[in-house]
């Protein structure tokens, strides 16, 4: 028989491609981003309110605040809807209907973010402006667009973890005289909690990192917002807006902004991955 060890070694090397990519991304973003953070000082970089690249002052606080406002808003709108949708698909909807809605959800995930942004501009922004006032380009518009965009992530992961709860839990609860809602709220949701949490965290990661859609609807003002109707600029939008012409230290400062995002999202996703590797129902 031919010696197949070389093949096996080659495959093993290739299997390291994602690890290599991850390490390379981390290394290059760190190399480019750290010098500016070191010069400005981490506290001043994160909490400084003045972002004036021409004057060499790089404080990202206002954009950090923008990102937090927009993400929290997206979660407030998207999590309840996403969970409800997952429960509906898993526990309530008749099979044929669920079989139609599930692909619809996957297609919602496939729509490019520029299309979401565009829909936000032509539908949501005018709606916010006429009904609630302000410029329309706002935290609220951005949050609403993001809520729809993170819906597929939250729903599909919650759906999978609800499906993973053994049927004996449902039967046991119903046999004890609980209603369908009581079964869902008191038995199934707690049993599926780690998975649901993982879905919400991954959705948060998506919202934090989304760029083009937010850039199109958020208004991009360089101030920390004080109301949901204020325009904001997120960290990601700032990178996309300025990267095209940034040079020298300005460019490095944008990469440092990317570094902050990278660290936050990697941390959040590691938690989500750890949670989702625990099987649903174990804690129940």
């Amino acid at each position, binding site marked *: *028989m031919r010696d197949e060890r070389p*093949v*096996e070694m*080659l*495959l093993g090397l290739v*299997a*390291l*491609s*994602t690890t290599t*990519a991850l390490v*390379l*991304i981390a290394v*290059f973003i760190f190399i*480019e981003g750290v010098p500016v953070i070191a010069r400005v000082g981490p506290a001043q970089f994160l909490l400084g309110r003045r972002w004036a690249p021409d004057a060499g002052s790089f404080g990202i606080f206002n954009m950090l605040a923008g990102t937090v406002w927009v993400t929290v808003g997206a979660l407030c709108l998207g999590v309840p*809807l996403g969970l*409800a*949708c997952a429960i*509906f698909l898993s526990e*309530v*909807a008749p099979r044929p209907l669920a079989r139609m*809605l599930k*692909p*619809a959800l*996957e*297609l*919602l995930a*496939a*729509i*490019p*973010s*520029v*299309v*979401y942004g*565009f829909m936000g501009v032509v*539908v949501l922004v005018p709606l916010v402006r006429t009904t609630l006032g302000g410029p329309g380009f706002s935290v609220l518009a951005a949050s609403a667009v993001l809520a729809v965009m993170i819906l597929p992530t939250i*729903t599909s992961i919650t759906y999978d973890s609800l499906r993973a709860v053994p049927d004996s839990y449902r039967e046991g609860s119903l046999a004890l005289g*609980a*209603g369908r*809602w*009581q079964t*869902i709220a008191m038995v199934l949701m707690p049993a599926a909690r780690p998975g649901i949490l993982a879905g919400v965290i*991954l959705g948060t990661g*998506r919202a934090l*990192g*989304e*760029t*083009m859609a937010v850039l*199109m609807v958020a208004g991009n003002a360089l101030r920390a917002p004080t109301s949901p109707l204020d325009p904001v600029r997120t960290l990601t939008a700032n*990178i*996309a807006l300025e*990267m*095209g012409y940034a040079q020298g230290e300005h460019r490095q400062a*944008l*990469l440092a902004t*990317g570094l902050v995002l*990278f660290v936050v*999202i*990697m941390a959040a*996703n*590691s938690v989500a991955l750890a949670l989702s590797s625990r099987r649903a129902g174990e804690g129940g």
Partner: protein
Amino acid sequence: MSKDRADRLAITALGLSGLLTGALLTLIVGHVLARGLPVIDAAFLLTAPERMGRAGGIFPSVVGTLAVTALAVAIATPLGVMTAVYLAEYTREGFFVRLCRFATAALAGIPSIIFGLFGFVLFVIRLGLGWSVLSGGLTLAIMILPIIIRTAEEAIRAVPRSWREISYALGGTRWQTVTRVVLPGALPGVLTGVMLGVARSVGETAAVILTAGTTLRLPRSPLDPVRTMAVHFFILAREGISMDQAYGTAAVLILLILGVNFVAYWLLGRITARRG
């Protein structure tokens, strides 16, 4: 509140949220197609834009999109399939496999703007490739790698064990078994992953705008910059150049992505049918 009333209320609310999700998709796709389809004809797809995209077609963007996507898929597919083969056929669960799985999942969760920054620093600047088809394709390849690995691995694991046993019983080596039995059996699933990668590449903006550029010209070499359809649509809409042209471009994007997704799920359906 009685148990039955709580149930009825909850089920109504849950049903409404399910309906809302379905309605959102229909509204978004319907709106874009209703305004965009009338703009699309052969000339729109096959002629060059005039006056920065105010009139004329989107031909350079179509070519740019196809070039960047083809390159991304051509790089990511062999890497992804080989990784999946290794994970599914050659190793047992252990540190190495856990590391690969973590890296794959983590890579899938990284936002596209970070891929864009990385591609800009490494390919555009350090390797001196500039804003180009090559830089864009390489960046997208890394971005779609996790999708291809995951679907391919699932497809390989779905190939019945008995097929492998027959191959070994006939004296096949592991490599022969993989290439002549397992991979042909897993082909539809592997193609599903490739199709999903295509859809992701076609619709991507943030990563591409930083690595492939925004030049609205027909590329003549892989080192030329291009403006993909998604980027072209973004610029048309953002700078208010032409609403009609923007809708037209968006409709082409949506049709392409939905089409590719339908093929992907049709292929996936064929495997599930065989397994069941």
